[in-house]
């Protein structure tokens, strides 16, 4: 049996790839896209909701441990593409990949022997509307680990602290870990969801408009967090906020009507886009 990264019997060696490979981030902090290896390789992807085709021939290479932003007017298929990356679209009846493929570390995630459970453990997702479970903060963070059968109290405590620190939430909630996650503010809830996601140590974090319901201060906190997270995780973020894309991402993809119009380093997209549509959109002239 071939052991692709996401099959149920996972090859333990694949886990170590991330921890041993050197950070691709260039010393001055501005990584150049050329050196970052590709982590997610989307090729010529068509996606259908029943009879409607939502994505048309998308080809995109998401670099490892960088932040990739998806921008574009409403309904252009950003969420759809994002949800293809952890096969969240499988939940919707009648959806299918018409053509093309998505490979993560070279493994086609839509091939037959891929276990979506393994895939989703490694490709976490933060949703537009923060969705903590109506359980305690502690239970929210440990949810993913308990699913994997981890019960050791010491281990769980450790992960809770580490994840909350990782999500820049520890100081705010350390005294009320057993209070309900719903008692937090909107911004804190969203960071709780991020903490919950990093608790299962994914490799990739998908974020679908994570700040759209947050005020500027909470947004700034999440953006700061994204900056830190990209040292360890590959992040794909959907946003309607141009400044946000400009501030946090390394590469930006502009979509329009289900097609990828332009994909380039963020600086290029905002300063010097090739495509006139991109230019019009980022400068706010349409969209």
């Amino acid at each position, binding site marked *: 049996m071939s052991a692709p990264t996401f099959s149920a019997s996972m090859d333990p060696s694949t886990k170590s790839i991330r921890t041993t490979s050197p950070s691709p981030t260039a010393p001055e902090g501005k990584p150049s896209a050329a050196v970052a290896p590709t982590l997610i390789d989307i090729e010529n992807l068509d996606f259908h909701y029943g009879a409607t085709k939502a994505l048309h021939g998308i080809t995109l290479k998401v670099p490892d441990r960088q932040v990739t932003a998806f921008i574009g007017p409403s309904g252009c298929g950003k969420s759809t593409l994002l949800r293809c990356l*952890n096969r969240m679209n499988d*939940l919707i009846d009648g959806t299918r990949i018409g053509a093309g493929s998505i490979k993560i570390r070279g493994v086609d995630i839509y091939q037959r022997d891929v276990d979506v459970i393994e895939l989703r453990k490694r490709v976490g997702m933060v*949703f537009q509307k923060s*969705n903590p479970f*109506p359980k305690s903060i502690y239970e929210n963070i440990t*949810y993913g680990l308990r*699913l994997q059968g981890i019960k050791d109290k010491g281990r769980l405590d450790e992960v809770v602290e580490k994840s909350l620190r990782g999500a820049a939430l520890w100081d705010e909630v350390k005294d009320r870990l057993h209070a309900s996650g719903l008692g937090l503010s909107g911004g804190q809830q969203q960071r709780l969801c991020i903490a919950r996601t990093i608790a299962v140590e994914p490799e990739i974090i998908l974020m679908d408009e994570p700040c759209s319901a947050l005020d500027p201060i909470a947004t700034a906190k999440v953006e700061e967090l994204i900056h830190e997270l990209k040292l360890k995780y590959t992040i794909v973020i959907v946003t309607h906020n141009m400044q946000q894309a400009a501030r946090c991402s390394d590469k930006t993809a502009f979509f329009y009507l289900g097609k990828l119009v332009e994909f380039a380093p963020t600086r290029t997209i905002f300063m010097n886009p090739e495509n006139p549509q991109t230019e019009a959109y980022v400068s706010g002239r349409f969209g």
Partner: protein
Amino acid sequence: MSAPATHLFQAKPSFARTAEKGVFWLFRSAAYLVLLCGALVFADIVIKGAPAVFTTTFPFVNTVFLTEAPESLYVFEHEGAKREMGDREFRAFREQEAAKAAAQGRKAPEIKATSFVYSAGGIFPCIVGTVLLVVGSMTIALTLGVASAIYLSEYARQSPLVSFIRLAILNLAGVPSIVFGLFGMGMFVIFLEWNVSLLAGWFTLAFMVLPVVITASEESLKSVPKGFREGSLALGATKWQTIRKAVLPYALPGILTSSILGIARVAGETAPIMFTAAYVVRDKLPWEGLQHAGDFFFQGVMALPYHIYVVSSKIPQNEYTERVQYGTAFVFLFIVALIAATSIALRNKLRGRYKW
């Protein structure tokens, strides 16, 4: 012109205001009418039933009525006084009189008594039977109902077939209960050879309330935010883990609410158990005289609603049967209220724990 407005927000007569008033009173009187009818029914049962259930002396509850089996009532004249006696008491009395007469060397006196079936003694076996029927059938209905609701709304692809199944289930809710009784008799009593038994009654009643349970469970499952499911699945949970940990706990209060309605129906229906589980009269209590533990499930029981029916269908009606009838109805209401209150308490507890 009407008087000039003295301030900006002065009330002005208009059609909308009149309509508002009219509609308000219409709705209000409708609600009060319903309340009144309900109150009348309850008052009737309480007033006529209370004398059978309560006594004026300590312990104020008619323990015989609540703890003994039904007996025939004998009413007769004796030494100028009108006496009422239950079957056993009457027989003992007769023997005693005969013995007395024999001792005095005269012929035993003929006691001319009028008997009224089931008008003496109590209704304990019926209480036991009804509680057993409710608990068993609700267990079956909830297990089957919640399982199929989970399948229909969480697992099955939303195809025309699934919609058709849903429609069929909804239609099932409109089937008269006597039809369920006949089905139960054909299926469980005769075909599966369970005879008139608790088991047959449980399944018949369970099938009768299943539509309610399934429909309500599906609604409750749907009302759990999609975000909980997605959040759970995105963390690498399987579907069943997601349902068990992030969906079902939050749907449970709603499911319980609906099953409370189911309980009242199961407890009160006569037709479905008439041919499947209920005995007119049975001497033994369900736990008495069992050869194997398994026999427990294959015995018929007495039940409160059926007892009311049996007693009421005695013609002519008289004050004695009426007393039992209303007493039974009173106890029945009390038991249903008790079971419902327990479920409501449980639901509220769950609701407090799983709120979002």
